[in-house]
């Protein structure tokens, strides 16, 4: 199979490309930098550039669309441009090029507001519920992608929940940075159950989605390790893997929410660098349960996670020791 992977330089992009090339698939990696990715043919360009995408997708059987603008800072226009318009471009170019399988990498946040998710199923993306530009733009993009599912080109959306692993700068990197600065605290009791996905499992789920795309087309599936953990257990496990002491500080949920509200306003109005330390969305995310029913996903994908949370933490510790 020849596959176009957009956004291949991300943690998950590298892992999935390695897995695909490892089993003999041909991969065209489209990205904005010219960093090489082992085994893939690298094409530089933005996903919003129709000519570039059109050229890259020629001759491909499948597309794995990972490229997106992530994070919590930036204007709505920026998020909309990359995530919504970019997806429209990639979907339409793929269709013109005769691609048969299209996997859109999404996020569980496209279907939910701030409520606790307890053994939840994947609801349809709903930009009316989402919080923050990222989730809203991804909801619009997923809705668009699934609406273009057809017998000629099967489209499916995979929503991996909270991907982490060795080399992860998003979740693991931030936790370690903040802990070093003494700025890490749990929202509420820290007991909220959170699903997460070890990087290898996220990659194997995306590969499974490419293989099963013809069967599961038109659907959105949440993917996780299926091992929810209290957020404090997960974070302290990541710290322990780095040889760091557990965090015991806790801030009440209301306080975190208030701090987030102030920070959001400040970052909107003042020329501040980087990301706000807290947002109302983050306060809710860190303080309420987010875990999903996985039986349905596993049955449809014919896939099982191969690395448990405990095994993942051990691999993370090994990675830190090797560094």
């Amino acid at each position, binding site marked *: 199979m020849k596959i176009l992977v957009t956004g291949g330089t991300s943690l998950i992009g590298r892992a999935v490309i390695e897995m695909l090339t490892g089993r003999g698939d041909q991969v065209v990696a489209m990205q904005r930098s010219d960093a090489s990715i082992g085994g893939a043919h690298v094409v530089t360009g933005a996903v919003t550039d129709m000519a570039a995408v059109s050229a890259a997708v020629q001759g491909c059987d499948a597309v794995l669309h990972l490229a997106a603008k992530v994070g919590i800072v930036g204007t709505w226009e920026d998020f909309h441009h990359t995530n919504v318009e970019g997806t429209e471009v990639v979907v339409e170019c793929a269709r013109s090029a005769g691609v048969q399988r299209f996997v859109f990498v999404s996020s569980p946040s496209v279907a939910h507001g701030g409520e606790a998710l*307890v053994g939840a199923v994947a609801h349809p993306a709903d930009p009316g519920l989402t919080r923050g530009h990222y989730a809203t733009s991804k909801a619009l993009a997923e809705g668009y992608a699934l609406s273009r599912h057809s017998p000629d080109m099967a489209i499916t959306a995979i929503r991996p929940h909270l991907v982490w692993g060795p080399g992860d700068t998003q979740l693991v990197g931030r936790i370690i940075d903040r802990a070093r600065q003494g700025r890490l605290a749990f929202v*509420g009791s820290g007991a909220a159950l959170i699903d997460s996905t070890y990087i290898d499992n996220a990659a194997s789920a995306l590969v499974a989605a490419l293989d099963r795309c013809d069967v599961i087309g038109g659907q959105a599936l949440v993917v996780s390790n299926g091992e*929810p953990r*209290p957020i404090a257990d997960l974070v302290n496990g990541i710290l322990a893997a780095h040889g760091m002491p557990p965090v015991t500080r806790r801030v009440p949920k209301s306080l975190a929410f208030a701090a987030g509200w102030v920070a959001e306003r400040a970052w909107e109005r003042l020329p501040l660098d980087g990301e706000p330390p807290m947002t109302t969305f983050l306060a809710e995310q860190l303080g*309420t349960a987010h875990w999903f029913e996985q*039986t349905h996903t596993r049955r449809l994908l014919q896939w099982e996670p191969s690395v448990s949370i405990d095994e993942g933490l051990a691999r993370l510790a090994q990675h830190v020791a090797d560094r």
Partner: protein
Amino acid sequence: MTNAAVQPGGLPPELVGLDPKWSRLVTARCRDGDRTFHLLDCNRHATGLTVVCVHGNPSWSYLWRELLAAAPSNVRVIAPDHLNMGYSDRTDADRTLSDRIDDLGALTDALGIVGPVITIAHDWGGPISLGWAQRRIDQIRGLVLTNTAVSQPSDSTPPWLITTAKSARVLRTVTQRTPAFIRGALRLSSPEPAPDIRAGFMAPYDTPERRAGIRAFVADVPLEPSHASFETLESVAAGLDQLAEVPACLFWGTRDPVFGEQYLHDFERRLPHAQVHRFSGASHFVTEDAPVAAAFWDWVEALQETGETSDSYAPQLNRSLLPSASDASPLVVELGEEGWRSIEPDLFLERVGRSAEGLGAIGAKPGDRVAVMIPPGIDLTVVLYACWQAGLVAVLVDSGLGVKNMDRALRAAHPDWLIGIPAAVTAAKGLRWGGRRIVVGEMDSRLRSVLGIERSLREIEFLGESAARQVRPIDADAVAAVAFTSGSTGPSKGVVYKAGHIGAQRDAIAELYQITEADRLVAAFAPFALYGPALGVTSIVPAMDVTKPATLTAAALGEAAAQVDATMIFASPAALQNVVATAESLAPHQRAALRNVRLIMSAGAPLRLGLLQSVARLSPSAEIHTPYGMTEILPVADISLAVRLARGPGPGVCVGRPVPNVQVRIHPLDALGLPSESATDRPHILGEVVVNGPHLKESYDRLWWTEHRSRTADQWHRTGDIGHLDRDGFLWISGRVQHVITSPDGPIAPISIEHAAERVKSVVRAAAVGVGPLGGQSLVVVIETAHRGSNPLAPAAMVKLVRAELESDGLQNPVAVLQTPKLPVDRRHNSKVDRTKVAHWADKILAGGRPSRI
């Protein structure tokens, strides 16, 4: 009185719970001309049974919406609105009870309902439905009544709500000018119905003109003989005799300030064959507060099932419950104020005979219920056996249940008599428990009259002494006792036994433990403290508060054993726990007495091996047995400590093989944790434990629906416990059905998980619960440790230890390990963890809720 406005009937607007397809308007020829009724009518082309639902005041057919929604497709259900009520015609004249009976007949005639009918009625719909049924005896197949009345019982006063509303000054204001009556009636509901449901009830009564029927309905309640409807109501009540052959069922909300339980008891007297289900805590609008629709359809279904084979045992007495007088050794020994005292069999039988005669002499009739509230000892035994001798039903309520549950139990059992120690009769007065009162012990005569005490036990015996003695054999088929369950596995329920069941239980214990007349028993376990005389052995009650098992000290147990040179000890786990803890204080002769015991039996709650091994050190020659069973049937199985140790650890608690004459089966659990309908006897299948035996209870008391659901198709008892049988036929118990964790990988039984977690040092006890949706639950372990602080998350080191123990048993990895300084346990046994409560707490904490105590 005439109404201000005549309005034609019409269809209701869209209302919550009401299917517009049900609504129709039908014109019928009434006595005063053609009238249009609104009615709900579903499955109108069904050809068999018709259910006729009759509402009261102030309501309308909306009351029956859930009953219609749940109707099987082969049964037609009609629920009309009375004229001047709901969406039926507003006529120019008020209607009386007699009119309404005629109206209902005119309507069913117009509908052409000529086949079999079951009626269900509420409030003042009750007499209307009964009046209709009495005119159609050939059609009526069943009568169901909910919170209604046909007469004012002579020993009670009319409902204050009705008397107040009827008083001339307030009648019109309350019932017609304002919607106060209907609003107030709905407010009786607990919890009050949701706003959209309240709106549904009030919808047809939006103007004073439309409320005229409510006023007239209240005015038609015949409280005095001069009232126009008095005679009709009297004749409906008298006509119940004609319906003695018709199956009947009474569904009753117990917290109804209008039709309280005195009206239920009135119906029970008038329809002695009726089945009864009390919905505890439900109010006047019982259909709003309790699942009456589900219960009703189960009743209808049960009515239609005929000729089913059942495995029920006929109660029989292989030998008398009374001991033989020939034995010279004391029968019961107790600690009195002046030291130990005892009663020999001949005097015991003498006192039993006198008490039975004396109770008869003051009016106790066979079948009367007697609440017996006496601590274990000579007097309790005498009274209990006297009840059986006299054909009375002993109501046994453990004071360990606490005042609130005792109160509930006594209201449910509704005793005709109450025999108790001064504290009990005082409580009976204060809490207004029913029953004529007899005190056990001396009491000042003034105080006696204040407390409404008629006699003392001594006076009863004196009365019986002079009466001509007739010793009748005890009838095996007569109801002998109503005992209340601990309530640790749900609300406390009355369990009805016939004398034959008690005899069978006695026989089971005697056979199981090879009890002979040479045995002497220390009875520190309430139920078995009563069985000494029936077993024909000497029994002694140690110095302790039997309602608080943990008050039994080693010295008290040893002293009692020494007094009678005991061969057997029956004690609860909590009692044994304290005995072990206080063993240091044993005097040499007490220690020696315990060493001579041949058998120790402990039941009522799970027992830890460690505790049993400590007990074994005090009584090295004793076999230590732990029977498994429940208030409904005990024993089911039995195991000795030696055998249990030989079986080794396993998934759950090994409770032994079924005892002789008892059969055990397993109903496997499905993916949602529900037991299937069919049984298996294959080994190692996890499911609900279902049992049968000659000492299985007769029924639950006034809980028809609970009884119905607790029985399998062939009448075996569903225990609610889950477990499995191993290859050698040993039964293993691993939790309760409602506590099964329904993980995506299949059902998980909590007890194996808990045992593994409890192996971790510093874990006092553990509860395994599921969080998340049924079928997709995640396993959570909650441990009780001596930690301080408010953090609900167990520290990482502890989590690691718990996970390691579970893994070594091949059990599922929990998503979280939570900690608490105290897990909630039941008050009777102080050991059964309330897992439902723990699960709610874990659910909240793990969803991100604020930390709190369980």
